[in-house]
């Protein structure tokens, strides 16, 4: 595996994630369209499905907010790389910005200066885990700001376990139509202040059609709010709740809710 292979892979992953949705996400959107009863919500869901089809056919980004470049990497411990992996990912993001193209979204947080290539301090956001095996797994998740802005984290107390559901419902209620519902909810429970936020984000990589009973219970409560597609009322406010847990301190219970818009864009590749 060469430096250039990683660069190419990153470019292609962003192209794929930006221009087409994975089958599980599409299935969830179609289900909502078929089962929605509100006329306005149904119209919005129809636009969404048409938009996805048009973007794929034309190979153009589904949404003009092509998001921030977020990259999750799993590196097999038997793998030996003789190049700088991070530089290759950064180069891939720069090239994807020009070639896909991606909107230059990354700016300095205080001066708001835009370098134009989606690259800066700590950007792209890269998470690297070392795992068993000899493969390099790369997942990209370009994430828009409308949904990210509605996310929240709370340092709950150990006896607040039965209030987790209420917290998720509260975060979704406060977001109303802003994050482009129907949304996907990444839920991080436990770990540390920062670790729990990362778990919430990582959970969004999962297959959105597979949920456990705990997640389904929260999903039902969230949909009971009636916010609906684009906040104009309806049965489908969220399409999935996906959680990850991490062990936490005996005195704490961090909970993070990472909201993802209906365009749950991600793409995966495995290199050897």
């Amino acid at each position, binding site marked *: 595996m060469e430096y250039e292979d990683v660069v190419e892979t990153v470019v292609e992953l962003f192209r794929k994630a930006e221009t087409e949705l994975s089958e599980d996400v599409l299935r969830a959107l179609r289900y909502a369209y078929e089962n929605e009863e509100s006329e306005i919500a149904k*119209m919005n869901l129809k*636009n969404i499905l048409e938009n996805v089809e*048009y973007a794929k056919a034309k190979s153009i980004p589904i949404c003009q907010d092509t998001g921030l470049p977020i990259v999750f990497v799993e590196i097999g411990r038997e793998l030996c790389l003789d190049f700088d992996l991070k530089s290759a990912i950064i180069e891939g993001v720069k090239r994807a910005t020009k070639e896909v193209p991606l909107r230059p979204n990354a700016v300095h947080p205080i001066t708001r200066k835009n370098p134009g290539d989606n690259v800066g301090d700590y950007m792209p956001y890269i998470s690297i885990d070392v795992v068993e095996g000899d493969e390099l797994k790369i997942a990209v998740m370009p994430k828009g700001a409308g949904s990210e802005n509605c996310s929240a984290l709370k340092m709950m107390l150990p006896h607040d376990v039965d209030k987790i559901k*209420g917290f998720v419902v509260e975060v979704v*209620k406060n977001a109303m*139509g*802003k994050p482009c519902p129907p949304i996907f909810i990444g839920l991080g429970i436990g770990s540390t202040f920062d670790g729990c936020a990362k778990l919430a984000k990582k959970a969004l990589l999962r297959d959105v059609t597979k949920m456990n009973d705990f997640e389904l219970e929260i999903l039902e409560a969230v949909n009971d*709010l009636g916010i609906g597609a684009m906040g*104009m009322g309806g049965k489908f406010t969220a399409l999935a709740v996906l959680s990850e847990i991490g062990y936490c301190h005996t005195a704490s219970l961090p909970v993070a809710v990472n909201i993802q*818009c209906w365009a749950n864009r991600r793409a995966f590749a495995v290199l050897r």
Partner: protein
Amino acid sequence: MEIRTPVRKEDLKKLKVGDLVYISGEIITARDSAHLRMLKYLKEGRDLPFEIDGSVIYHCGPLMKKVGDEWVVISAGPTTSARMNATTKELLNYVDCIAIIGKGGMDVDFRGKGVYLAYTGGCGALASKTIKRVKTVHWIDLGMPEAVWVFEVERFPCIVAIDFEGNNIYEEVKRKVEENYKRIVGGKV
């Protein structure tokens, strides 16, 4: 129903919450930075390089590409309008009539001045289909998303979300959502 720009009060008055309306003519994009600069200019008594009275302002930071000397739209859906709540309230003091296109709703009293139209968020690819031409761009120094792009559109489809009388679809939904919320969480917050 179809509305041509520049918008006129007598046309906007006919729009009712929930109506599907098509906009044809010229729309101008503006988001956070463009609103701040517009207000700065207006407060200083300086002319804007574009007309806002009778305009259709689109809350959108498009994804554009330069082909030769010309800009083309790649994807141009709406951005979250609520970020422009405060600046829009101020901007209304400088116009007689206006229409705004965005997503997610606004907390602004448009009564007697204008309407708020919703376009499905995230549908940037589909929106680009109705944008026929990029007429010009102002304030490109603000960066691609924040610049003011002038688009010529044909039958850009929107849902009337806040009408001329101040009926607000989001307010109605919000009231119900707050009631549902209390019932769902009970005492567990």
